[in-house]
């Protein structure tokens, strides 16, 4: 009995840090409509700052707690900097760019933490005066856990008072609903946004700091907590602080009891719980349906047009160049072009989902990696031939997409994005942790194509056929009735439902199709490298795809190709540096700030109409004369 009670209390204790982080994310999102992907990094920084401050001032009991609060304040200052320098310029940009920018911040923070605190995991200091153990019905329990249990409800109460009993809180709640209106009533929105962002950052920092005596600080904390925070926010209901608290408790309990019942299966349990809750209550435990109207445009409303005459010439020329490439370039460059083509297919599949479907997925690498692992597992365990494994790769990825998509399409907008990210993190965890099958971090090796296809040139042509074929197939689907139906669900769900379109089914099929195409790219990748590692499913890989789409511009279907090339180039240039993440992160942030339309988008903006890269909507229509003839 005592064991269970202590287990329950331990669950409550770990819920506190999770709740702090999740409430911060929720508050920031509510007002600024930015899902702060760097939130996990703020949590991590809280832990690191806490570690250092405790060393500096944390001698006594008071010093320890002062150090933790200082850590929260320091993270708040980092938040202030991020808001002032980056986000403030992006509030009017499409959501995607804000998210990509905060992802850049993740990379910068990772390398900054590596530089400042080193790569070793840090063991957290113990809280002076609270190092003891109490016995509850005979079972020992750390005193510090009891303190943690109190922190969550206390912060909850403080937040409730702040939001319901102060003018600032009223304004924040008002801005959560209609921030433009709040501005028109004489409230300085920028100040409000900055304040909220700092508050949210501080909560994340405090969360990271208070778990220090239990969990310490390490460089993998950021993505770990991010996925958990997303799950908490989705389960609790976005924008509801009470919901976040409930969900944090629920999930922490599940984790602590799950370890007793099914060690190693806690992730699965967590996602079963999430699935059940989302089916019963799609808006989360205490969430409200998204209010429609007065919300910023997602940025994908541009119509895709069939190819114009010059565009066809351009594509033909590009294809001819690619076909002739082996004659002109050396093997190293040929491998590089193969990589670019594979990535272009990967990025195009995501672009299809985003532009035609309006579905921004942050976990698309799950399917890229899914395809790669399908192929690799088939080769390793079923000794299946290369040809079969390559063809089954999209099938495996598609099936994974069917399962994940079935949950995700129940949500929309940022909820959808968050859930895809959380699922991708699960897929990564499985690949990473289930080492009996996947060989964990060491990856699966020896995944080579059949002898006939193993030459660089032959494989290049094979990749060319599959990648170009895949991209053309995607383009074909965009202009098929399916693509039109999908675009209809993006343009107006109201109208789409009213004319008998089953929105979820249309979106799910699109998700599966895009997943399968990403899986094809993943399969090709596995065979081109001869190995697969969990990295191919990781969140950073998902962001690579987003980055390629961003570099290429979201509004043109040819963008991903440009994006893949630019990405590969950048990546190869920067990876040689020790702190390459810092450079990549800074580059991302700079690119987003400088070219909010993407590189190709910016170029097209100036050249597009002039060069007739897309068919002119008015010219695509039958001319009046032809119409008259028909009549």
């Amino acid at each position, binding site marked *: 009995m005592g064991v269970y009670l202590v287990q329950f209390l331990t669950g409550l204790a770990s819920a506190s840090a999770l709740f702090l982080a999740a409430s911060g994310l929720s508050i920031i999102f509510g007002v600024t409509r930015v899902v702060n992907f760097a939130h996990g990094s703020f949590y991590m920084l809280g832990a690191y700052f806490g570690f250092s401050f405790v060393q500096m001032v944390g001698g006594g009991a008071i010093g320890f707690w002062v150090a933790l609060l200082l850590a929260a304040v320091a993270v708040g200052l980092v938040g202030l900097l991020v808001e002032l320098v980056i986000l403030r310029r992006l509030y009017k940009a499409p959501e995607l760019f804000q998210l990509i920018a905060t992802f850049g911040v993740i990379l910068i923070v990772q390398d900054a933490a590596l530089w400042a605190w080193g790569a070793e995991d840090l063991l957290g200091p113990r809280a002076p005066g609270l190092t003891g153990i109490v016995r509850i019905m005979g079972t020992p329990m750390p005193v510090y856990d009891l303190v943690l249990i109190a922190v969550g409800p206390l912060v909850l109460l403080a937040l409730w008072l702040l939001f319901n009993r102060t003018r600032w809180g009223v304004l924040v709640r008002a801005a959560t609903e209609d921030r433009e209106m709040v501005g028109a009533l004489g409230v300085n929105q920028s100040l409000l946004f900055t304040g909220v962002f700092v508050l949210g950052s501080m909560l994340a920092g405090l969360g990271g700091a208070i778990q220090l005596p239990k969990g310490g600080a390490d460089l993998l904390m950021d993505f770990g907590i991010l996925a958990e925070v997303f799950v908490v926010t989705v389960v609790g209901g976005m924008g509801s602080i009470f919901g976040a608290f409930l969900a944090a408790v629920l999930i922490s309990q599940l984790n602590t009891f799950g370890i007793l019942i099914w060690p190693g299966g806690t992730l699965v349990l967590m996602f079963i719980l999430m699935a059940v809750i989302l089916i019963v209550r799609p808006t989360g435990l205490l969430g409200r349906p998204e209010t429609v109207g007065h919300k910023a445009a997602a940025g994908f*409303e*541009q*119509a*895709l047009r*069939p190819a114009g005459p010059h565009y066809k010439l351009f594509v033909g020329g590009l294809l001819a160049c690619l076909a002739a490439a082996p004659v002109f370039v050396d093997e190293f460059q040929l491998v590089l072009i193969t990589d670019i083509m594979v990535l272009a297919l990967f990025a195009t599949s995501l672009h299809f989902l985003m532009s035609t479907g309006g579905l921004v997925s942050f976990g698309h690498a799950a399917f890229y990696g899914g395809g790669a692992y399908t192929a690799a597992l088939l080769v390793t365990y079923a000794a299946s031939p290369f040809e079969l494994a390559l063809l089954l790769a999209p099938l495996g990825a598609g099936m994974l997409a069917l399962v994940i998509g079935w949950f995700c399409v129940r949500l929309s907008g940022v909820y959808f994005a968050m859930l895809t990210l959380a699922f991708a993190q699960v897929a990564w965890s499985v690949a990473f942790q289930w080492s009996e099958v996947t060989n964990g971090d060491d990856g699966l090796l020896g995944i080579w194509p059949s002898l006939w296809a193993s030459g660089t040139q032959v494989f290049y042509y094979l990749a060319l056929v599959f990648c170009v074929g895949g991209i053309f197939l995607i383009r*074909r*689907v965009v*202009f*098929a*009735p*399916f*693509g*039109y*139906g999908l*675009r*209809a669900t*993006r*343009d*107006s769900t*109201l*109208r*789409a*439902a*009213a*004319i*008998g*379109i*089953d929105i979820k089914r*249309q979106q799910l*099929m699109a998700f599966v*199709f895009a997943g399968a195409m990403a899986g094809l790219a993943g399969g090709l990748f596995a065979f081109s490298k001869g190995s697969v590692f969990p990295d191919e499913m990781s969140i950073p890989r998902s962001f690579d795809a987003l980055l390629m789409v961003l570099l290429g511009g979201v509004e043109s279907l040819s963008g991903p190709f440009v994006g893949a090339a630019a990405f590969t180039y950048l990546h190869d240039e920067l990876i040689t540096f020790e702190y390459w993440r810092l450079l990549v992160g800074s580059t991302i942030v700079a690119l987003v700030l400088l070219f909010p339309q993407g590189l190709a988008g910016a170029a097209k903006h100036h050249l597009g109409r002039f060069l007739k890269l897309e068919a002119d*909507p*008015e010219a*695509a*229509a*039958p001319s009046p004369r032809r119409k008259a003839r028909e009549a």
Partner: protein
Amino acid sequence: MSAPSTIERATDLPSLAVRNLNKAFGGVQAVRDVSFDLAEGELLALIGPNGAGKSTCFNMLNGQIPADSGSVRLAGEELLGYAPAEIWRRGVGRTFQITATFPSMTVAENVAMVLMSQQRELFSFFRSATHRHRDRAMELLDLVGMTGQADRPCGVLSYGDLKRVELAVALGNTPRVLLMDEPTAGMAPRERLELMGLAARLVGDLGISVLFTEHDMDIVFGHADRIIVLSRGALIAEGNAEQIRNDPLVLKTYLGEGQIYGQAED
């Protein structure tokens, strides 16, 4: 096709029979025991103050929100419990208060979209949809006088034209009942009369029954065959223009002292 029986049924059954419809939102009874019939070919106006439950009624009729209890029968067939898509297939079309079209598609594509959906082609991945169902779409656009702008994107149309496109879209699957939510909201007086005249003519020609909500009393009194009045979730009056205009309860809860309608007669 069981055409004969349908026609036979249509003669003795109302197009739409609504019985004891109820809906509560978190303890607030939004719609209470609402019952009415919509006869074939009838233009029935549903009026009432904002928040009286008109939108909730509409949303229940086309399946967007589930009713707590009650019954909605389309020519004798129960509709409650079906998804919006299924109710649409069975012949209940809808236009929205704020126009809802697909702004990235052309006018003709907007209409063609309905036809693709109706003919269950939405899971076709390979054939081109660029000019699909163009002829039929043009016929429908001809009905509402929009062929001239068939190839402009919907995103650039004027408000009045969007309303016409919506009408063509609603007629796309030849509905038996059309629900129109404030069809003339946001339009100038003459445009209002034109649009309502067009709608009335079309439903007359095509034998469609229309239920519409409206705040412009000139439209209501000028075009509705019959009027029902909703207040605080319940029906408080039913009748022709003359009866409604003189109903004391309606005057108190909705029409007021008559200052701001009736200009058309000046």
